[in-house]
């Protein structure tokens, strides 16, 4: 199924997928015949558990190699790049938000926000990090240790971290899993705001029905790896 012409006709996509098969150890869990996403656009990847949402997200982010097909990010064909170069590209231009938050417990909230810049050896703009913490409503907690945060607060720190280097793409894997309704609302709003703030494309993998209402473009993956449909 080709989703390109119907939804994302722009000539300069941030992500371009062609005949993509994703999975682990040669076992295909999802296929996407064609997909293009532009800067500023948001797309929800939905589907049941095991349908390959996270696998597709990790593949788009260059953390997994596709079993077949191509991932082109911002004009860079991942199949032509080394793991190290893909890693650097990911660090500099993709904001990743993980399901289990993954803050470094021994560090302060502020240090966790600048962690992405540190990882790729970029200048750690702490003023900008404080500004981002203000956006996510946690400026007062900047010196707190990450392990003292609630799950909702930690997810907001992860969003601030994803925004630090002005990414062109934000990938969020089940960002509202195990959050209550109030925090889901906050995190959902912040993700949209974060994408707007940095003019990034936003891809969210989720099976959270509460998020589906907020996004127009969906790519639904089914447990049948051949299937994939957009709304």
């Amino acid at each position: 199924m080709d989703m390109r012409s119907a939804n994302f006709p722009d000539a300069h996509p941030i992500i371009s997928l062609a005949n993509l098969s994703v999975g682990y150890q040669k076992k295909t869990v999802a296929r996407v015949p064609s997909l293009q996403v532009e800067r500023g656009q948001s797309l929800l990847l939905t589907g049941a558990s095991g349908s390959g949402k996270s696998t597709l997200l990790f593949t788009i982010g260059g953390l997994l190699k596709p079993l077949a097909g191509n991932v082109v990010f911002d004009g860079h064909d991942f199949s032509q790049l080394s793991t190290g170069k893909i890693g650097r590209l990911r660090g500099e231009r993709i904001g990743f938000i993980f399901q289990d938050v993954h803050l470094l417990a021994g560090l302060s909230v502020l240090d966790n926000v600048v962690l992405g810049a540190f990882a790729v050896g970029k200048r750690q703009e702490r003023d900008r990090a404080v500004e981002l913490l203000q956006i996510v409503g946690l400026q007062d907690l900047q010196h707190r240790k990450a392990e003292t945060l609630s799950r909702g607060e930690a997810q907001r720190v992860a969003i601030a971290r994803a925004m630090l280097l002005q990414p062109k793409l934000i990938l969020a894997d089940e960002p509202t899993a195990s959050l209550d309704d109030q925090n889901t609302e906050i995190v959902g709003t912040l993700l949209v705001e974060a994408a707007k703030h940095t003019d990034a494309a936003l891809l969210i993998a989720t099976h959270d029905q509460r998020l589906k209402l907020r996004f127009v473009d969906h790519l639904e993956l089914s447990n049948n790896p051949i299937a994939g449909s957009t709304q």
Partner: protein
Amino acid sequence: MNDFKLVGSFILRRPVTWLFHALSLAVAIAVLGSVLLIQRAADTRLKRDLAGVDLVVGAKGSPLQLVMSSLFHVDAPTGNILLSQAETIRANRLVRSAIPISLGDNVGGVRIVGTEKAFGTLYGAELSSGRWWDKTMEAVIGAEAAERLSLGLGDTFVGDHGLMPGGQAHRDARYKVTGILAPTGAVIDRLVLTDLASVWAIHENHHHDGEAKDGHKHHERGNEIGKKDARQITALLVQYQSPLAAAILPGLVSATPDLQPASPAREALRLTALLGAGSNTLTLLGTVLLALAAFGFIIALASAVASRRRELALLGALGASQSHLLRLTLIEGLVLGSVGGAIGIAFARLAAASIAATGLGGYALPVESFGQTDLVLWSGAVALGLLGAVFPGLVAARTDIVRSLGGGA
């Protein structure tokens, strides 16, 4: 944020485990370090006390005993030799200098050495106060001896017969302190020096009922040490005129009745070999401990890397390169080696200072101040920390990011 801050946060999450491994490295370094420091101190002391003496000429007996008693002043002499025989050797053109010494008495356990003023030059000794003796029964005291005996310029004392305290006192002959030597770090610091004539005078005028309890033998064979026609000394400390002397003089001495030559260098080697067995065992123990410590912290680092798999995966997901992940583990090894090494050196110095203060059979050792040995030990510990971190670091660098972040199937 920097690598050290991040590694510090890793360490502080498991401080007790980390400290345990730093301490096991420290113990190994301490054992090795203290053995090394004591060995070096003993070598230094040995070299200083040999004082450039090439040959000791004394009464027949054990050559090691002759050297120990005449140069290190820690054993009983082998006996006495005739001054006239010593003078013959002294006159040999192969001899650059020859200094006679005469032992036999002590004051408060400090040996009284009858000798010549040139004895001081052997050790580079200089007076810190007073003057050298001008006449009999005047004495110059080494710095350590003066402190131990609480003697100052102008004070008088009597010598006891023998080389250990408790012998019969020569009450009718008092020495007067005319000079005190500056510290040299050599055996002369622990001696009382006087001229040969004083020793002879005491023994010409004084007789005892029996032998001293340390086997002191200056009454043997009816040759009283002080009789003018048969004056005796304990040993002659000889420096060669040329290397040729080493080939000829010992033979000449051996050929003289009642005399034996002893090479201080050779006897010092024998002594080192005798003591070496103990220090070799300690060195082996230290090496085994070091190997165990290295193995221990390789396991500890590997376990730490495994326990922070998610953190490392997060850094990888955020764009950190494999070399960066390797570097973080190497830094942890570096910190572990540095801290363990520093603690180990501190322990080694404490142990060495305690051993040196106690002394080995009254033979005090000058432990060197902080320097090359400590740097070598510390560098070794750091290198060991780095080497031990290589394997865990490679494991860290190859962390499977997706699986570690819970995304694997």
